[in-house]
């Protein structure tokens, strides 16, 4: 679950001076309680979500434009409603655009459907693969922000078959991994193999010479890309 950023138009239900709006937006930074709205896809129980920042952009009468960076699972509709309650005016979310999901932002990688259909038809004409690579990124891009573990070639196929990662397979890792952290396991070439849950910390992983270090949760790489280096117990 990754962090998000949105640009939001909040509509106030009565006139409020700008300095009061910016002050309350500031107060709504940090961890806060949220009960998911009536129409939501999750269980409606009180939970905490962290707002990393609320950046006021501009205000036009009762419309407030601001940027919000927040934890996955934060309801912006609810945030606007709650801000309205604190302002005393009441408010609702008028418009919303997501501007970040984890490593994906509104940068040069962002393409429209028009861009895609144009680049794709150009590729069909010219067969120039770089046209496709302009807008299709390797899946590894999605894992950019996760802590990583790199493993030996000999460990790859076992992981592809769902095996858990053991200490001898580990070549390098990010520092600061704690027990229970979600990690991404990579080949030395930088290919994603699995999403796993660390069962030991980085420090311990560095010192271990045998035993499990991460439980495999999702296999991303197809089997057979790397040679099978493990032996079955029944042979």
């Amino acid at each position, binding site marked *: 679950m990754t962090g998000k950023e949105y640009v939001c138009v909040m509509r106030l239900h009565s006139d409020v001076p700008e300095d009061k709006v910016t002050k309350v937006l500031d107060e709504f*930074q940090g961890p806060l309680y949220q009960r998911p709205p009536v129409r939501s896809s999750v269980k409606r129980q009180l939970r905490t979500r962290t707002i990393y*920042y609320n950046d006021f952009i501009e205000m036009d009468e009762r419309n407030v434009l601001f940027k919000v960076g927040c934890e996955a699972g934060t309801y912006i509709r609810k945030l606007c409603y709650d801000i309205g309650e604190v302002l005393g005016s009441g408010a609702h979310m008028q418009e919303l655009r997501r501007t970040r999901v984890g490593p994906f932002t509104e940068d040069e990688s962002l393409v429209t459907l028009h861009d895609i259909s144009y680049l794709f038809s150009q590729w069909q004409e010219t067969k120039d693969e770089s046209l496709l690579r302009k*807008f299709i990124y390797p899946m590894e891009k999605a894992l950019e922000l996760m802590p990583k573990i790199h493993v030996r070639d000999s460990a790859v196929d076992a992981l592809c078959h769902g095996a858990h990662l053991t200490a001898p397979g*580990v070549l390098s890792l990010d520092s600061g991994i704690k027990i229970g952290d979600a990690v991404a396991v990579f080949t030395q070439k930088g290919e994603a193999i699995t999403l796993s849950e660390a069962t030991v910390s980085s420090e311990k992983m560095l010192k271990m010479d045998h035993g499990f270090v991460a439980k495999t949760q999702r296999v991303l790489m197809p089997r057979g890309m790397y040679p099978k280096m493990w032996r079955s117990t029944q042979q």
Partner: protein
Amino acid sequence: MRRINEPWNIKRSLVVKAEEETDMRFGHRPEERPIKEHMRFGIINLDKPAGPSSHEVTAWLKRILSLESAGHGGTLEA
């Protein structure tokens, strides 16, 4: 309260436990994947128009790019 550690600004550092050469006969660096594989395991950062649902847009893309399967990273649930 002001600006707390956004998860996308966390800096990590890689530590080496052991060294080994990788065999170039197997696998590919992600940016050098053969185009067919690249498309099968690729990701698009799409500027979705307001209106059509994520599900609909995914279906269009699947058709435009003649893909076997396609999915999306989640709907915008306000």
